[in-house]
């Protein structure tokens, strides 16, 4: 890694940022979320915190701009240069700028949420097939009302999943009309308008009236962006493709590569390119705002470019679904700021421990153990060491209080857990026949390790996932193609996954998210199924790609669990936390399992 000359860095830890403006490529909440996640990457490995503020006094001002945007370092249109940032300091120093002639996405194409239809607001799937034809943008084909729609799976003809695309005919944003749709034509300053317009505004935003006469009613709203067919670059950035258009005398009804030797898809933004020469690039995969922002924020914190091609701070963009921070990035940022601080020391647990009962008691120990410790807490900096190198914690504390923990006993030494699950309101961490419990009462405290076989004797050492059904309190454990169901101390199983309706294509259940009314989402690799606890069967028609409902999480997660009503997707040592607001799932935090959940040093 490299730092800037003079090791430029912030001299305070509570960094503030301001999102000065937005790209229209993505919904604003998705942009907010991408920046928050990008900051979270760095805060996970440093003592730094990042707080969003709303004013110029912010340390890091984030801006979208095009070409020369006021700092003397112009952007270059689509592709090539994507963004830049300045090293820490006052004024423009620390600021991050993003080229708004790029198509900003989450790295896998335009993000177009849908409304109504039968797909519960899932995003469009581009391209999709409808009546044998492939579509890369929303379409009015197949409808007589001219409403734009898209399929939310790759094949509408098979799946019949669809929703309506953002359109001014469906709704408007902000303004003063409660989101009502545009009314066309409408009158503004005596003129009639049959489409959204920027007239009357200096900021370029498209608006419309929501009644037939703006001059009289003064009701208006802003028109939703057509991210699926808005061009980038060229000489018409932000405008819509016009189909059909004429190019070299021939008519085109979709984006084309004709006329270019770089393979980029383009379209005209008027009906005749030969006459008007107005054009732009059609949407492609786009660049992940999250990844580019994470890189730029690295600069804003003091890191220069790395020579390690796998590092986030390598100057070239490459898409990854994995956590982008490389060891080199972590070393670099920790060279400047140090590592994440250790948690507050726990109260000393100088107790006379008793042998552990065969099953953990159901009563939580909320404070430092004083009289009847039911199980020994994990050793903190001053706590008792574990009893033996490999055995379960059955004996009292050993005499030597400074002896190091056996790595197998130390929850903080576990890189990747087999399974994590919320059981009896406490998070359980399973690994190789052992488990630990996280208690949040009386301060965050880890208890264990306990032997799985002592608590749930029927289970194997290695679990893939587990969950507790909130209504019946049944606990489901999964390992390979087998499932066990514990009700109190009685167990049903092992049973084959086929009994649940999961066929041989499901090699393991990697996670579960309990939902309302006795339903649970069961995950395996990149799909999930709806499971009915009462019938103990999955709805075989409910197989859904994970990224359709949980965008922004890695696809190769090995464990998924619910904790305090949020979903956690684990990949390697990291987790992506997803909160659900208004039925929209959104990643709101990325962290380390050990540092952030277990608060390991």
């Amino acid at each position: 890694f490299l730092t800037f000359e003079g090791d430029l860095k912030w001299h305070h830890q509570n960094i503030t940022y301001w999102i000065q403006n937005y790209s229209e490529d993505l919904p604003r909440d998705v942009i907010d979320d991408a920046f928050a996640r990008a900051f979270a990457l760095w805060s996970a490995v440093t003592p730094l915190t990042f707080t969003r503020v709303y004013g110029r006094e912010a340390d890091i001002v984030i801006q979208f701009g095009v070409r020369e945007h006021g700092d003397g370092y112009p952007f270059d249109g689509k592709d090539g240069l994507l963004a830049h940032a300045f090293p820490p300091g006052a004024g423009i120093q620390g600021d991050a700028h993003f080229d708004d002639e790029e198509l900003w996405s989450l790295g896998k194409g335009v993000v177009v949420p849908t409304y109504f239809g039968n797909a519960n607001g899932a995003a469009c799937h581009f391209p999709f097939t409808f009546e044998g034809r492939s579509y890369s943008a929303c379409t009015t084909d197949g409808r007589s009302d001219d409403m734009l729609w898209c399929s939310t799976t790759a094949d509408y003809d098979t799946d019949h999943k669809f929703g309506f695309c953002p359109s001014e005919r469906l709704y408007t944003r902000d303004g003063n009309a409660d989101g009502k749709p545009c009314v066309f034509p409408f009158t503004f300053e005596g003129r009639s308008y049959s489409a959204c317009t920027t007239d009357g505004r200096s900021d370029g935003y498209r608006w419309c009236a929501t009644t037939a006469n703006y001059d009289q009613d003064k009701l208006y709203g802003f028109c939703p962006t057509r991210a699926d067919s808005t061009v980038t670059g060229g000489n018409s950035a932000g405008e819509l493709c016009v189909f059909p258009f004429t190019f070299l005398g021939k008519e085109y009804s979709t984006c084309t590569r004709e006329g270019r030797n770089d393979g980029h898809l383009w379209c005209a933004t008027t009906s005749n390119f030969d006459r008007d020469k107005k054009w732009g690039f059609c949407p492609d995969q786009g660049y992940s705002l999250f990844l580019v922002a994470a890189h730029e924020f690295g600069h804003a914190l003091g890191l220069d470019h790395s020579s390690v091609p796998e590092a986030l701070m390598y100057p070239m963009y490459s898409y990854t679904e994995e956590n982008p921070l490389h060891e080199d990035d972590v070393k670099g940022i920790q060279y400047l700021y140090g590592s994440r601080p250790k948690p507050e020391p726990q109260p000393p647990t100088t107790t006379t421990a008793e042998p552990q009962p065969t099953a953990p008691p159901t009563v939580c120990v909320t404070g430092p153990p004083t009289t009847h410790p039911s199980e020994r807490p994990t050793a903190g900096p001053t706590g008792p060491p574990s009893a033996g190198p490999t055995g379960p914690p059955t004996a009292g504390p050993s005499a030597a209080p400074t002896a190091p923990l056996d790595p197998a006993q130390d929850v903080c030494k576990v890189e990747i857990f087999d399974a994590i699950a919320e059981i009896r309101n406490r998070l359980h961490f399973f690994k190789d026949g052992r488990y630990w419990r996280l208690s949040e009462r009386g301060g965050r405290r880890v208890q264990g390790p306990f032997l799985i076989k002592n608590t749930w004797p029927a289970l194997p050492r290695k679990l893939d996932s587990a969950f507790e059904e909130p209504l019946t309190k049944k606990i489901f454990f999964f390992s390979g193609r087998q499932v066990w169901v514990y009700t109190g101390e009685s167990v049903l199983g092992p049973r084959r996954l086929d009994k649940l309706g999961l066929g041989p294509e499901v090699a393991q259940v990697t996670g579960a998210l309990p939902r309302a009314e006795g339903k649970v989402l069961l995950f395996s690799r990149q799909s999930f199924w709806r499971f009915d606890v009462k019938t103990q069967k999955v709805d075989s028609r409910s197989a859904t790609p994970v990224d359709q409902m949980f965008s922004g999480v890695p696809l190769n997660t090995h464990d998924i669990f619910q904790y305090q009503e949020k979903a956690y997707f684990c990949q390697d040592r990291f987790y992506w936390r997803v909160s659900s607001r208004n039925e929209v799932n959104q990643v709101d935090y990325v962290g380390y399992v050990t540092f952030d959940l277990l608060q390991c040093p």
Partner: protein
Amino acid sequence: APRPRQPTFVVFPGDRQANLTDRQLAEEYLYRYGYTHVAEMNEDEDSLRRALQRLQRRLALPETGELDTTTLNAIRAPRCGVPDVGK
């Protein structure tokens, strides 16, 4: 059978990079990202070779000093605008 036709390439207005040769593209890149200075922007093969080697070393590419495919691909790749060398 349809007769294969020669594709027609068009100069799109505002499409800045379309007409640059590989060498022009490389020279612009080397300058923009700090591998050369204005004084080195000439036809001198040696200065180009040295600049390319600097770039290849910095980006962990094979150090050929040539404008080879790997280097050209790196030059064409989307990237951050912060210079690799210098302020």
